């Protein structure tokens, strides 16, 4: 998007009120003569797309930004992007809320006494410059701490630090994957996370690693797994102490005692090496170093039955292309190094390297530091050695354990400069706040994986008085040198891209949003000696001590950085269906023993830490294991592993005691069991027999051209809730808030219902089924709910009087009522999708298969004088689904994908016996 477009848009952006929250108000879209005609291809009133990159987590997924009159209204994955290939996770879908969030920092601020007061950029920069010189005299060290930064920005940071005599500290990430990097460093001299090519594996064994939630690049993993599954010969076992979404989606899930991963791994390693010798045989020294053990012993230690152990080992050894990944909480523990290196050895032993474990395209985690680095930093600040401390897009105060006293030591630095977009725990402590623009407002690039560049480009001018990451540094440089900024970051970037990719390459980058360099295959060699040492030097397995609290990474808010996105607290956690507020999950046995019920509040007490949390009973969780999502526990008591310096996410010897209070926790699910109602039937056609033929006086609905239908493949759906977020953003679904959720008044049009059966969970995405004989339509007194010629149950909001009879009569309960007027505080109102009205108080609303998208597609088709082609467009949910579980299309088109799926023998429809004939088809059971 070029300057002149901003010029054209001038006036639209500046305080344009796009839609009143009152759906019935006259349109406030303005009737303006702009200065210039817009760019070619941009038509006012029609949407256009620009590529950029999601910065909600370090994975660096490519996104297409949907623009309406210069306002980003939706993010969608870039198809073919090397990282996410069209998919986008729940956080990515939600991240527009970050751009438009009302609480975003609106300008630089400086601390005066206790409070922050707004200052000008000039003032802010000169303050930094002054204290830079000051600390140079006072021989204080200036420190620069950032979250994970890659690509040009990282280089710019280095340059800046070098110029200004600032020491750049190792980057701080909560999920630093230290042990894995260490192990790879020791064994192969590659201190980094390799790129796991799961799609090439036929057997995947994952130990503790949360591939689907947060691990390095979850969307990529999700796509890889589903493509491997699509191949049909793929098997996936998962081993973990608690219950994670990843575990829930593995073909088989084994529960082991927390802290016993290394025993399991060494057993597997031994088994594998016994069964098959790797291409380059291991040195005798190493073989000697391997711990000896047997299935029965290990079974005793880990709690996994020995036949299962044998089964796993067997698969690992016999599979043609096996792949073992250990990580996440599996390695973030005392002895994590052993687990990691054993895993690495297994990979080596099974010849997974380099086909399936690719170090050439490693994930660029080299510069990410450890918890120990942070300890040192804190200590240095405590000793008063720190001059200026820059905190760049990182929030250590929130995530670091109390004992580091980071918050307190921060005050001892001569000046603390925080750069970020929200007044989070850390920025609240700093002296000087430099607000950063959202990635959709700024130029930049990221290199999430070696040889993969993804583009950041501004799609709208900054909403507030903020600077882009690069420009802040450049302006700072300029200020200090006194020669003004050396050009803008934009120019600098274009030059850099030109240099790296060549002219053509740069244009391709700008157009497609990503660039991939061809890298030579990297042959890594195992350093047997170091490996042997590592194994020998391992201490005895120290037992975490029961019961254990597992700090699980969170699907919804990563390490907590996404907490500020309201929509993410609105979307329930897939396993517990809890929306707002922290909780601790507990096994049925433990709860029964302590006589606890859902929502009872308990105090968790560990060595030097205690907190009060409400309980949620979690089926499928092993006794003696609690788990809580880390992002919901501020400064948790994490120990530092003495060998790797990484954090230990198991907290042993936790004592629980009930406070007697019951907390208010919105648990959306009314029942974790389907009570034999066959929502997810086994076998699929148990309801076939009860189908009754109907006799009606009314004329049949007839569908001339289109009959829209959605197919949901339950085997592919992994409950990641990306579709829910997509639906929220696409359809202006309001954020109801905790109070309403407690009353059971959530607004989401699409929900994912987890149903448990003996510890196994299955997910059922439930949205309007667009019934052919819809119970909602016949009871609406005013035709607000009516059947349209394309088979949709349309809801006419302007006509609805709010009798709510339709909702009563809906067996699927997918209609949502506006119990109150939902506000869209400025500037979130600019995020509203103009193609969908904001619903008024007192009307019923529901999913209509994204009718606005259907309309647009038909419009386009009509222009070209044809029918809509299959796959030409799809609904927001289907588009966002990383696993491709949702397929949308025209049922009258015999060639269409959805037609094929709807007529597969795996297909069923929910509550078929009611004779509602839904247009949503569910597929279950593996392909025969």
């Amino acid at each position, binding site marked *: 998007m070029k300057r002149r477009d901003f*010029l*054209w848009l*001038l*006036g639209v952006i500046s305080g344009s009120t796009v*839609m*009143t929250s009152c*759906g*019935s*108000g*006259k*349109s*406030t*879209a*303005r*009737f*303006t*003569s*702009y*200065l*210039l*005609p*817009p760019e070619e291809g941009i*038509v*006012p*009133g*029609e949407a256009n797309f620009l590529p950029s990159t999601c910065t909600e987590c370090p994975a660096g997924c490519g996104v297409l930004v949907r623009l309406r009159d210069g306002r980003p209204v939706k993010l969608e994955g870039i198809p073919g992007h090397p990282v996410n290939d069209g998919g986008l996770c729940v956080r990515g879908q939600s991240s527009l809320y970050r751009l438009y969030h009302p609480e975003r920092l609106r300008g630089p601020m400086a601390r005066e006494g206790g409070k922050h007061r707004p200052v000008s950029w000039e003032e802010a920069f000169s303050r930094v410059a002054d204290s830079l010189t000051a600390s140079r005299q006072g021989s204080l060290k200036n420190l620069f701490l950032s979250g994970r930064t890659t690509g040009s920005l990282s280089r710019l940071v280095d340059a800046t630090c070098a110029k200004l005599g600032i020491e750049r500290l190792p980057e701080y990430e909560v999920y630093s994957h230290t042990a894995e990097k260490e192990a790879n460093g020791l064994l192969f001299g590659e201190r980094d996370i390799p790129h796991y090519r799961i799609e090439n594996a036929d057997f995947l064994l994952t130990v503790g690693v949360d591939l689907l939630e947060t691990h390095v690049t979850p969307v990529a993993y999700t796509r890889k797994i589903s493509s491997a599954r699509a191949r049909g010969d793929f098997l996936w076992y998962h081993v973990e102490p608690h219950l994670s979404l990843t575990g829930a989606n593995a073909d088989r899930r084994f529960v082991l005692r927390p802290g016993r991963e290394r025993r399991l791994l060494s057993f597997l390693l031994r088994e594998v090496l016994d069964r098959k010798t790797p291409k380059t045989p291991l040195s005798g020294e190493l073989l000697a170093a391997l711990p000896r053990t047997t299935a029965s012993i290990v079974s005793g230690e880990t709690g996994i039955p020995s036949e299962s152990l044998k089964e796993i080992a067997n698969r690992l050894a016999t599979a043609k292309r096996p792949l073992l990944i250990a990580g996440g909480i599996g390695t973030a523990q005392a002895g994590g190094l052993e687990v990691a290196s054993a895993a690495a050895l297994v990979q080596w032993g099974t010849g997974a390297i380099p086909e399936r474990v690719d170090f050439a395209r490693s994930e660029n985690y080299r510069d990410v530091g450890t918890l120990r680095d942070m300890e040192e930093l804190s200590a240095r600040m405590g000793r008063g050695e720190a001059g200026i401390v820059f905190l760049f897009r990182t929030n250590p105060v929130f995530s670091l354990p109390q004992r580091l006293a980071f918050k307190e030591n921060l005050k001892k630095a001569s000046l603390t400069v925080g750069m970020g977009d929200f007044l989070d725990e850390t920025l609240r402590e700093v002296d000087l706040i430099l607000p950063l623009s959202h990635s959709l407002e700024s130029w930049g690039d990221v290199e999430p994986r070696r040889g993969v560049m993804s583009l950041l480009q501004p799609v709208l001018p900054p909403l507030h008085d903020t600077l882009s990451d690069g420009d802040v540094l450049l302006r700072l440089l300029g200020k200090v040198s006194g020669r003004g900024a050396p050009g803008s970051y934009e120019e600098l970037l274009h030059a850099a891209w030109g240099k790296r990719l060549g002219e053509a390459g740069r244009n391709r980058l700008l157009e497609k949003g990503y660039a991939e360099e061809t890298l030579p295959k990297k042959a890594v060699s195992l350093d047997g000696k170091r490996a042997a040492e590592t194994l020998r030097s391992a201490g005895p397995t120290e037992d975490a001590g029961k019961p254990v609290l597992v700090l699980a990474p969170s699907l919804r808010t990563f390490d907590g950085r996404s907490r500020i996105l309201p929509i993410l607290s609105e979307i329930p956690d897939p396993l517990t269906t809890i929306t707002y507020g922290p909780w601790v999950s507990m096994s049925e046995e433990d709860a029964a023993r302590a006589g606890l019920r859902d929502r009872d509040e308990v105090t968790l007490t560990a060595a030097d830490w205690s907190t009060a949390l409400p309980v949620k009973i979690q089926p499928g969780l092993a006794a003696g294991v609690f788990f809580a999502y880390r992002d919901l526990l501020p400064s948790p008591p994490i120990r530092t592993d003495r060998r790797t310096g990484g954090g230990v996410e198991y907290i042993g010897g936790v004592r629980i005691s009930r406070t007697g209070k019951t907390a208010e926790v919105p648990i959306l699910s009314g029942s974790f069991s389907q009570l034999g109602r066959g929502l997810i039937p086994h076998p699929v056609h148990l309801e076939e027999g009860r189908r009754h033929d109907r006799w009606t006086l009314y004329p049949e609905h007839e569908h001339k051209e289109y009959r829209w239908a959605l197919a949901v493949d339950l085997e592919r759906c992994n409950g990641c809730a990306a579709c829910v977020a997509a639906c929220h953003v696409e359809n202006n679904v309001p954020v109801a808030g905790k109070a309403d959720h407690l009353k059971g008044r959530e607004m989401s049009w699409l929900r994912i219902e987890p149903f448990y059966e003996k510890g196994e969970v299955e997910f059922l995405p439930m949205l309007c089924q667009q019934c052919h004989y819809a119970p909602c339509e016949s009871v609406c007194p005013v*035709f607000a709910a*009516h059947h*349209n*010629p*394309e088979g*949709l149950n*349309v809801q*006419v*909001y*302007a*006509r609805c009087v709010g009798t709510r009879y339709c909702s009563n009569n809906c067996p699927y309960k997918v209609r949502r009522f506006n119990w109150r007027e939902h506000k869209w505080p400025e500037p979130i109102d600019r995020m509203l999708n103009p*193609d*969908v*009205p*904001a619903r008024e108080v007192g009307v019923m609303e529901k999913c*209509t298969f994204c*009718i*606005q998208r259907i*309309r647009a597609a038909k*419009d386009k088709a*009509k*222009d070209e004088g044809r029918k809509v082609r299959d796959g030409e467009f799809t609904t927001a949910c289907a588009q966002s689904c990383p696993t491709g579980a949702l397929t949308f299309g025209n049922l009258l088109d015999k060639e269409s994908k959805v037609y094929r799926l709807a007529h597969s023998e795996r297909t069923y429809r929910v509550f078929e016996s009611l004779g509602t004939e839904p247009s949503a088809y569910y597929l279950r059971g593996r392909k025969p």
Partner: protein
Amino acid sequence: MKKTLVAIAALGYFGVSVLLVAGLGYLWYSTGPAPVQPIAFPHTVHAGGLQMPCVYCHTFVERSRSAGAPPLEICMGCHRSIATDREEIRKLTRHYEEKRPIEWKRVYALPDFIYFSHKRHVKAGVECATCHGDVAGMKRVRRVNELVMGWCVSCHRVRGASRDCATCHK
């Protein structure tokens, strides 16, 4: 005494009703069908006298759902050289030089919950005049049709266009 009271009351009543009429009149004048525009653009001259095609200025009417007001550049295209001395044209040039977009007063507005596409209607061969009346004949553009649902529906009925609610209701 009573007589005077009644007289006053009556006077008040009639006075109020007169005022109400006046008030309504004012309301109609200010927000009515023919608002006064920031620049008195005469369609009579452009569409009338010069017979300029509507599409020349309302560029997007065939491409977008919204016809849109012409970008200033289009006006300036001619008025750099033509009739530059007139007061209204000066206003226009000022806007252009100061890079201030012109905020026209809406004559026709649809509610938020309505989807309406000029493109579709133009392509279906509906003349602009069918809805907007004989604009070429209006010195100040005047709303000639209240865009009420029944009006749209009856036209859809007559022409056999779709009458599914979802055609227009978002």
